[in-house]
Structure formats: structure tokens, C-alpha cells
């Protein structure tokens, strides 16, 4: 075990911290817990993965808090915020069918065609 704190690169963005103090770092546990908390709020208490496609969150400039909405959780009391609060098309219809006013000149489907041949986009 290295006794030179400067040589300790590991754990939670706090290089130099002594190993025995890791479990007591307030920044560590707070950060981890907030990950879960935000996810749970956004997903209506169901999952960390609030941000499945068609969901959105904005920072409320008044409170600094994330306000999230989705087709699944919009009825759970979460509110819209930020510049996209006036309208949310997330969760209605499928590819492009719900966009704009019905006179949209927006083209869709121009990304994604290559992915159809493969198992996954990640790796």
C-alpha cells in the first residue's frame, strides 16, 4: 500500500485522500445517493432510468432543481420546465408522426438505417 497520498489516484475524484477515510467522504455518498434520487423522481419512483426515449428534464431556474416529465410519469405530479415546457410531444405516436403542426418540412429517419443491420450501437 502506498503511503504517499499524492500517489493515490483512486476513488471518487479526490486524489490524495487516504484510504481509510473513503467511506466517510461526504461527497462520495451524496453523489451516489443523488444519482438514485433523481432517477427515481423522474421515473415516477420506478427506476433510475428515467431518461428512456421520449422523456425530458430541465433545470428550473428558480429552484435549480431538475423538473422531469415523460409519457409515463407526467401524471405523477412532475412538472415541465425550461424552454420546452410549452409542449411535449414525447410519448405520442411513433417516428415523426407527432411532430410540428402537421405541415412540417422536417425530414426524419435519416439516422438509424445502418443500425438495423447490427445487434447494438454500444460495445
Amino acid at each position, binding site marked *: 500500500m502506498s503511503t504517499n497520498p499524492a500517489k493515490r*489516484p*483512486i476513488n471518487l*475524484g479526490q486524489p490524495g485522500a487516504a484510504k481509510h477515510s473513503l467511506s466517510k467522504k461526504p461527497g462520495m455518498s451524496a453523489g451516489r445517493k443523488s444519482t438514485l434520487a433523481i432517477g427515481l423522481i423522474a421515473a415516477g419512483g420506478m427506476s433510475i432510468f428515467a431518461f428512456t426515449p*421520449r422523456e425530458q428534464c430541465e433545470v428550473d431556474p428558480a429552484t435549480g432543481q431538475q423538473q422531469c416529465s415523460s409519457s409515463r410519469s407526467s401524471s405523477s405530479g412532475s412538472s415541465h420546465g425550461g424552454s420546452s415546457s410549452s409542449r411535449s410531444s414525447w410519448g405520442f405516436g411513433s417516428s415523426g408522426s407527432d411532430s410540428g403542426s402537421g405541415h412540417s418540412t*422536417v425530414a426524419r429517419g435519416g*439516422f438509424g438505417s445502418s443500425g438495423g443491420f447490427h445487434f447494438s450501437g454500444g460495445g
Partner: protein
Amino acid sequence: MRRLRIAPRPDFADYARQIGFTYHAADGQPYWQDEAYYAFTLDQIEKDLETPSQELAALCRDVVGRVVGSEKDLTRLRIPAHAWPLILDSWRKRQPSLYGRFDMVYDGHGPARLLEYNADTPTSLFESAVVQWHWLENGRERRALPEDADQFNSIHDALIQRWRVVVGSGHVHFSCMKDMTEDEGTIGYLADCAAQAGLGVSSIYVNDIGDDGARFVDLAEKPIDWLFKLYPWEWMLADEFGRSPSMGATRFLEPPWKSILSNKGLLALLWEAEPGHPNLLPAYFADEPGAAKLARNHVRKPIYSREGANIDMVDRGRAIAHSDGTYGAEGFIVQELAMPPRFDGRYATVGSWIVGDTACGIGLREDDTPIIGNMSRFVPHAIIG
């Protein structure tokens, strides 16, 4: 480096469900391994994994700087010519990177060797950053691990900080393909980190992205200023929108210059730049003369591929492993064979995470074959002693 047994958590499935780790098992097989872990010494982590990862990240940036203006090398990498200006522009503007993962072969002795760099669309992120850390905390609490057990893992904190640096303020759209549970989990986690950094976030499937002729828009026709795409650059550039003028109006993560690093041709370019480097394996483009040096001992990899697909391993002239897939049309590279170590009959590979320019954690995956693929299993690690 040891593989050790540990009592699995009886409530693991509930825990996984609570935090949204929905892909901890796939096709009836556990993806997350809760009954074993890898133990490292601090020296192994610092000297053999962290420092080399840091150095490899720097070498990769050097390669980009050398290659990005070279039509010859961009051609060798099979990057389409229409994308060259976009890539060069992103590099000249120093558009920042978010993250990447080096996959390395390492057995606890001697230098770790780079197998490949997942520089564009790496997954296994949530399990590395959060699930693995929770496992460590839980293991210490229930005394299944030593009280002072540690972990090489600042990924989560680094990601939040990196979002602040890369975007600062604004709104990021997160995108992936439909019906890909793991990919949705990965963008969900990254969006969560971005939200914790104070950014607005939303999500859209890649094929729902719109183009109004001047810029990309979401389903509400709101401009997409920042797009995190878990969708490879080579696919983006091959798709219809990849030639759109709107490509220059959206900031992408990863930035376009990462297409040079997410290409298996990088391995050959690294070896050209640093032959004999202890953390590199000899590698050549398969259609170039150097490849003959590895005729009897090599791994052949498609220039573009994901998830360990279309790999062939040859040991002393004999084919020892092969994986199927849909890649390879653009050509191949060959890399000197370096077998992953076996622990308890399983092959293990280390994934070393880079956030920004900083090495900040590892995750290990195991497989019954020496080819790590989409069905490989994730195993946590701890620093013991």
C-alpha cells in the same frame, strides 16, 4: 490479481430492479456476477493499469493530431471522404471528448496490453461506475470484504464533472437505437450524470431525429444543440443525414474526431507510431505488408466492429476461436495474439475507463471463450492490500 469467491447478495435482484439495472441478466444468464470478484493490489492498479491507460490516452491524441489531416491515413481507416472536413474541424476546434474505454489483457504480472479502444460508444458504464461501487460498499458493510477494501473507481464523479466542463450549461439530447435495453440504460445513466451537472436532458431514438435542412431537431422540432449518441460514427456518416448540412450545426458527443480512435485501424497506427511500446501489441492493416509478420499468431478484427463480432484468433497457424457477426465489409486489421488470462476457467479482460483525459476506473468482463462479446459477464473488483 486474483479471482475470489464471495457470498452473493440474496436480495440482489431486488436491488437491481430498484436502481434500474434491468440488464443484469440476459437470455436467462446472469450478466452481473455477484458471487466472485477480482482482487488487485494498489501497485497493480496504479502502475499496471492506471498509468498505462493515461499514457495510452495521450498516445491516442497524438495519433489523431497526426492522422486527422492525412488523406492517406483517413483512407486507410476507411473513413469516407465526405466526413473529413467535419472531423478535421472538430479536432481544430478541440471539441472535447466525454469518455472511452480501453480493453486490455492483463494477468497481474507485467504490462497490460491494449486490445482495443472503445472510444465512441462504450457500454458497461453504469455497472462499472455505480453497481460496482455499491457492491463494494455492501461487501464492506456485511463484512464479506475487508473493511479497508478499496476500488479504482471515480467514474461517476468524473462524469458529472466532465459534463460541466464539456457543456457547461444548456440542454443535451441523448439518443440510441430502439429496443436496446443496455443502450437505453447507458444513455439513461449518462443523462442522469448530466442532470446532476445541472444540464437539461431529454432523449430521442436515433431514427426519430429530424432534419429541417439547417439543423437537427427533436420530435417537438426543438433544435438539437448537443447530441449524445450511442450510435457509432461510422454508421452516422454512412446514413443519409450523415451528409446533411445540419451536421455542422449540432455538437456531438463523442465529437467527430473520435471516429479516428474508435476504428480498429487505430491499433495499427499506434504500433506505427510507437513500435515496441510495452502496452501495445504489434498490429497492421491486414492488406498491408506488415501483416505477414503475424501470419501464424494473430487476432483478425474488422476495422469497424462492435461487441466482439467477426473476430478470428490464430495461434501457431491454427484457428482457435471465431465469432460471427455482420462486420468486415471495410476490411480488417491483424494484431498479435495475446490470450486473456484464465481464472477459474474463465477468460478475463480489463476495461479501463477514461473520462476526459483521465483514467478513472476499471471494470472486468469474463467469458468462456477468449473473445469478449455482448454475452460476456461483468465481474466487480476490489483493491485488497
